[in-house]
Every structure is written in structure tokens, then in C-alpha cells.
């Protein structure tokens, strides 16, 4: 079945257009869904894009987590009927809703940070076998609240279930284990559980060599499980 990608637009989303463009450039049929819908139309793949939903007021993603469409998303996930990707603010929304474990808190610097980073696949998600352990992507981050945190009691489960998908690695490609652009626990950049994946970096911004990297093409293709073009 050809994938049908739906990008959810919350009030204050601002990477929605970039994300639509990125998927369209991969040849995927892509539409925008409004946050106040109560269904997902016939989407096979749902993307929660980056941005500042509701201004990121209160906490990043907290208010969008209650949008009407989120119930439809929860239902579709439990039916196994959908694949979900949360990018940046989308990742924050998924955590706030409890769809992914943990929470994204203010960067330890207390500052927004926009920079190119290297991330590496730590645990390949069962659902997306194309991501192989040790695979590296050069992707930008742009966030103020990207420090991944999780309660003590849930940490073991996170490892045990193979949810630790992506981590930041040193810009020189050396795995020193010390490099950490935002103070995430274990330098975590992305989590995946079942059909849901969330990450802070922006693959949709890395689609062309002249923008700094085209690793985002490979990343999104693997998520779509389509042959990259």
C-alpha cells in the first residue's frame, strides 16, 4: 500500500510546511490535518511536526497534547493502524500525552540552541528495520526544551524494551559518550516504542546538500520504509 502521510498542524506549529515539502519530495502523498479534527482521514503515517504549539506556553507540547485529534491518534495506535513520527515539538507532544515515555525539559544551558549535530542509532526499532545499529545521521536541532528526562523507576524499562533509539554523538564522530548538546539523559535524541517514534532533531531540514546535509532524506525514507530516491 502506498503510504499516505498526514502532518498534523496545531496552532503554533511552524515546521508543518517544511515537513509536508520534505515528504512530498520523497514522492509520498502528503496532506495537512487540523488539530481539531476527530479522525485521521485515511492516513497510514502521521507526523507531528516541529514548532511552538500554543506558544510552548505552560510546557512545550503540553497544551497540544489535549487537542481533539490526539484522541484519534491514541485510538489508531492502539488498533495498530498507524505509524507515528514526532519531530521536535511533535516529540514533546507525544511525551506530554504519555504516548512515549519520559519528558522533554529545558536545555541545561537554559538557552535555545540551533546547531548541526550527529546522531547515531542505538537500538534499531523493530518496526523500522531499515535503521541499523550504529547508523549515523547529520541533522540540525533547534529547540529550547530538548533535554530528555525520565523518572528513575522507568529507566530500566526504557533500556529493556529497546526504546532508546537515537543518541547524540560527538561532532568528530568520536563516541566519547560525553558530548551532549542539551543535557539529555544518556544523550538521548530520540525514542521509539511500537509504531511510534519521536526525536528532537529535524530530518525535514536536511533534505538537500546545499542546506547542509541530505541525511534527512535517508532518515525519512527509512521511516516510510520506501526506497530512498
Amino acid at each position, binding site marked *: 500500500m502506498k503510504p499516505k502521510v498526514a502532518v498534523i498542524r496545531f496552532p503554533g506549529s511552524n515546521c508543518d510546511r517544511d515537513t509536508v515539502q*520534505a515528504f512530498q519530495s520523497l514522492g509520498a502523498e502528503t496532506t495537512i490535518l487540523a488539530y481539531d479534527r476527530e479522525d485521521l482521514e485515511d492516513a497510514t503515517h502521521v507526523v507531528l511536526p516541529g514548532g511552538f504549539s*500554543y506558544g*510552548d506556553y505552560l510546557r512545550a507540547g503540553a497544551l497540544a497534547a489535549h487537542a481533539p485529534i490526539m484522541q484519534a491518534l491514541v485510538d489508531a495506535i492502539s488498533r495498530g493502524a498507524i505509524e507515528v513520527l514526532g519531530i521536535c515539538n511533535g516529540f514533546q507532544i507525544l511525551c506530554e500525552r504519555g504516548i512515549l515515555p519520559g519528558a522533554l525539559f529545558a536545555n541545561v544551558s537554559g*538557552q*535555545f540552541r540551533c546547531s548541526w549535530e550527529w546522531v547515531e542509532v542505538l537500538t534499531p526499532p523493530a518496526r523500522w528495520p531499515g535503521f541499523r545499529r550504529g547508523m549515523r545521521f547529520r541533522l540540525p536541532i533547534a529547540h529550547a526544551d530538548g533535554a530528555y528526562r525520565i523518572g528513575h523507576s522507568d529507566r530500566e524499562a526504557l533500556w529493556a524494551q529497546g526504546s532508546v533509539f537515537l543518541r547524540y554523538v560527538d561532532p568528530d564522530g568520536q563516541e566519547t559518550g560525553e558530548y551532549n548538546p542539551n543535557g539529555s539523559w544518556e544523550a538521548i535524541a530520540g525514542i521509539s516504542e511500537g509504531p511510534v517514534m519521536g526525536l528532537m532533531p*529535524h530530518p525535514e531540514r536536511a533534505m538537500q546538500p*546545499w542546506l547542509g546535509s541530505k541525511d534527512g532524506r535517508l532518515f525519512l525514507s527509512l521511516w516510510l520504509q520506501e526506497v530512498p530516491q
Partner: protein
Amino acid sequence: MTPDAVGLTAKEAERVRQLCGREPNDLEWGLFGALWSEHCSYKSSKRVLAWLPKEGPQVVAGPGGNAGVVRLDDRMEVAFKVESHNHPSYVEPVQGAATGVGGIIRDIVAMGARPIALMDSLRFGLEGNGQRLRDGVVAGIGGYGNAIGVPTVGGEVYYGPGYAKNPLVNVLCVGVRQSKDAIVGASGARPGQMVYLLGQATGRDGIHGASLLASRDFSADDQDMRPTVQVGDPYTGKLLMEATLAAIETGGVAAVQDLGAAGLVSASSELAVQSQVGLELHLDQVPCRESAMSGYEIMMSETQERMLLVLNSAHGGEALAAISQWGLNATPIGRVTASGRYVLYFGEREVANLEASWLVDGCPLTPAGKDLVAPAFKPMRPSPGSMEEGVEEGFDAGALMAIASDPDCRERRPIFQRYDSMIQTATVWGPDHEVSVLTVDGSPWGLALAVSGIGRWAAVDAYAGGAAAVSVVVSRLATQGAVALGLTDGLNAGNPDKPEVKQAFEQMVLGIRDAARALDVPVTGGNVSFHNETDGAAIWPTPVIGGVGRHFHPTAPVADSLNRPDVTLLLINPALSPSLGGSVWERQHGVLTAYPRVRLSDLAHTVTWLGTAVSDVDADIRAVRAVADGGLWLALVKMWLASAPSVGMTVTLEAVHAMPRLLSEEAGQFLAAVATTRVEATLLQLQSNAIGCLVVGQGHDGDYLELQVGRPSRWTRRWSRSQMRAAWQSWEGDSGGSGTP
């Protein structure tokens, strides 16, 4: 209410009475006070600004509207303007800067253009609370720009003593729109149409912000005059931007005007004048955030995130529907009339009845100087102990490193890393370059953007500083082979009632005029900020110039660094007798002398030649940079540090005037790295175009920068990459990275 309570002079009050033919009521006095303030009326600058060239075949809209518009190609147009938010940023740096960003974005949106880029030009003091102010301002700009989703693709920051109590926050916004027959702006309103207010509910925010705060000098006892600070709300700003653009898209919008300084009175009266219509507004219908707001407060409020729309009858309904899609309401607050009168009602009661043109154009303007020629260049006594006087030859390695690590020169990563520079996925070159390069959806061409305005250069000779700012901007665009389409100028100065400030202002504008003419670029809009003066101490006149260029190959910018060492380093159009006037070096040594006059016709020549040379497929020119602050030296350092680790450089200079040669900041010079095999051809080309050139060095494959002075070399000095990087990134040593980048 007395006229002087609203900031009017006795003479102005008399003029008001004359226009009205009666004694205005309190509300009316208030309206005049706001619109005849310096900030809104441009009374001290209008006649001077008229000197600037504003025409060109590419100009769609010049000064007068919310932003200038130039044509990129047959389909796409570019709207751009610089705006200052200096006074509010001093009072409250985070919100002051944030609301400045919001304001300039709304100006672009009001032209029917989608904002695609921001640039910021900042000035702070080095001592005292400079760092606190800078951190707040950067947080504010990032906080707003990042959230609304417009990338900040570049900017600049400089330091100087006068900015300590008068920080400058100038922001440039660039937007694009499709060429349409009907240009949206404030001029399309027709009688019978309805007037709507869109966005945030009106509160008592910023009442008198423009009329009193920004139109007077600061002094210690201004505390209680401070209005309720406006707070930026990028979330509502985003919805407002999208809703306005969507409404315009429907064809239902006849006129649009953003609410900024002096809020509703300014927006509505300007719209009335531009459309040559009358207006009838019902103040009690304005949605308010606070209870019991008076008509006066409603008219003067500077609550952010509001737009005034006039809808036409044919598609107005569609426009309203588009607006509600974005979760906002448009509230009808009045209608357009044929009477030409500007009438305000509160309930049934008529509370003001004027002509809008009295408010907008009635204020008596200060005459401009008649002297329309450049003031003579006054060579200054050389700086005490300067190389020009004593040290005729040789060089001082310590001084060079002090330049590389100077707060005016060092790397800006700690600042620009706090800005999202990549959103909208069009940023090919962002803030780590001196010229930004963007692709434009819907055009094979892209944009080159640059901003520059060094107050130090205008400190002694404002004419020279104005001309230099334009020269640097056009030079930077030229390094990309881009055609400069238009300029916007943010003019910052002290109290215009002081003769020396007025004179410097006029000379600064003359410098801008002469450079813009010589380089054949129109000035399509800008901003004036006077009264950057606290307790009698004023800033250096500071001309912030922004430039927009048509880039013919935006996905392949002309490099500003090297990945191969087989190059020869050229200084193109070198200074004839290099001067340290106005340089960082002088500021470090506590003396400022006059900045050199840019040789405008030589520069125009060089720019034309570069335009073809850099796009030459033979790629004779492997990398090029415009010389500005820090001189040739800083250009070399930046080119080298950005180059691949396998590239080293050896710079060779004559012993005579070696230091001025390295450190002169005369604009219009270019550092170019040319493939060594092609150097002869390039030199011939330059010669036949009568463009001066010096061979200043060679690339090599050692990972160091070497300076050799004298032929044969009498002094040499070598720096490793890590040494140089440590100097240029000297903010890294500061605690928590919050030093002085």
C-alpha cells in the same frame, strides 16, 4: 489636557488650533500629540530622508508604505525593511526586543508578503550592564523569531561606550510575495467598506511608548512615565500572520495596516490618508483586555499582535472565513466613508472629528540643511603613538591577536546559536557567513542578504560612516555576484534638537545617498530612531544598512573559505594609503580619528567586475570576502579558520605600513583567493579594468597561518589553527559561554 502634556510645543499647538479652527478636546489633543511625536511624524528627518535615491526599474514600492518592495523576477517580489526598538529594549530587554521583531514582521505581512528571514543589528556598551542587556535582547529576538517560525539568518553586534545606556536593537525582516496587479497595502480602502480589528485584545500596554518614550531623551527621573510594558506573544503573532496572509489570499482584503507605534490612531489615520478616504470608528466596539478603558487609552494602546483590515464587499466574507480558520476573530469597528473626515465615536457620542491628514501630514517639519554636498574630508592628526606616526614598518603580533579577539571582531556563535536560522528550509548560508544566501520558492533565483552599520566609522565623520555602511553591504552582496536590488536604512542618532546631532544626521544621510547613487541601489524604506541619548550622553550616529540582492545560483554560493591550498591571495581594490581611522585598533587605543572616505567610483567598478568574475565557471576565484571591521587581517583570519584543516596561508607584506595595510577598515577592499594557475589571467583582467590589486600571500598545505613582513622577509610570525581559534573564539573562556561574543 494641555498641549505640552502630550508632548506638543507651543508652536505645534498653535498649528493644531489653526488646522481645526477650534480648540480640540482632550482626546484630540492626545491624537495630535502621538502622531506629531518625532517617532511617528518624522518631523526632524523627513526633509533629510527626501535626499535618498529611491527609484529603479526593479522598485515596486518605495518608502512611504510599511516596507519597500522590489522585484526579484517576473513572478516574485521581495518586501523588506529595518525597524528599531531601542528604547523599549533598554527598559525591558527581553520584551523590548521581542516586540521589535513582532513589529517588523507585521510590517512585512501588511505588504502581503510572507516573512522568510530576519537579521538583527545590535549595539551595547562593553561595561556595566551591557552583558545583561545583550543576553536579554538575544533571548527576546530568539524567543519571538524562533516561535513564529521566521529564521534569523544573520546579523551583527558591535560595542561602544555610548551604547551602554542607549543599546540599539535594529531588526531587518524580509518577505516574499507573488507579483499581483493589485498591491495590498494601506491604500486600497474605498467608501462603504468595513474596518476590522484583528488579533490580540487591546490593553493599556505601551500607552505613550512612541510619543513620549521614544521621542525624548532618557533621564533618571523618567521612571514613572514608563508605560505598561508591551509583552510579545509570538503564538498570537503566528496566528495573526497566517490569518492575515490567508485573508489577503482570498482577494477580500482592500487595505491592511499593522498596529505599531501609537496603535490604532496611527494605523487608522495612516490608512485613511493613504487611501484618501474618511473613516468612522466606534471605540466601544474595540475588544479590550482590561475593564473601563477610555477612548483615549484605546486609541493610544500599543498592544502588540493586532492588524487593521478593510474588507471589500465582493470577497470579504471569504476573508473572514479564512481568518476564523486560524482561530482568530475579526471585529468590525467602523467603516470607510467618502467624507474625508476622521470621526471617532464612543457609543452614540462623537468624541473626535478631524481630518486624518492633519494627524498624518500636518506636523510642521524641521527644515533640512541646504548643504547638499559632501563635507570636506578633514584629515585628523594621527592617533598618538599610532603606526602612521611612529612605526613606519614592522608589525606587532600581540596587537593582531588583540584584534582577532576583540569584542567587535570575535565569533558570534554564542549569539546566533540561540536563533533558529534554518526553519523554512531555505537557508543555504546562515549567520556563520557575512552574507546570507537563501533560496526562494517559486524562483530559480535566490536572495543574498547583508546588514552593516558600524557606529565607530561614523563617530567622527558621519558622512564617511554612512557611505561606508552602504559600501560594505553592497560589497558583501557583490562577493556572491548578486545584483543589489534595494537598501533599507535604520538611522540611529541622539537628540535632533542639538545642532551637532542634526548636522551629523544630515551628513550620515548624505553619505548614504552618495554611496547608494554611486553604486546604483535605491533606498526603498527604513527607520529613524532619534533620542538615543541618556543623561546627555548620545550614541555615535549609527547607520544600519540592510541590503537585498538577486542571487543567480543560490544553491551554490561563491565560497568564502577554501578546501584546497593551491591559491594566491589578492587584495582587490586596496586602500591607496591605508588609514586606521575609525578602526578597532584605534578604539582599543582610546582614540578615534576620521574613517577614510570610500572611493565610491572605484568600488562601483570593482563590484561590476566581481559580478561576472565570481560567477565565472572557470572558478578563478575560489573564495572571496569583503574587508570591513578588523580590516584585511580579520578577513584573512576568518577565511582561514573557515577553511579545511589542510589549508594554510602565508601572508607577505611590504614592511612599510604593514600594520595599517592589515588593519585599515576602509570599505570596498576585497580579499580574494584565486587559483594559482589562473592568477596571471586574473591580474590582467583587473589591470584592463583599471582595478587596483595587491598580491598578499599564498595558500600552502601546512596547518598554520604565517605572516612575513618585508621583502626579503624581516619579520615572520606563525600561528597554529588552535591558537588562532582560541583568540577568535575567546568567548569560550567566559563562564557559561555568556561572556561577550
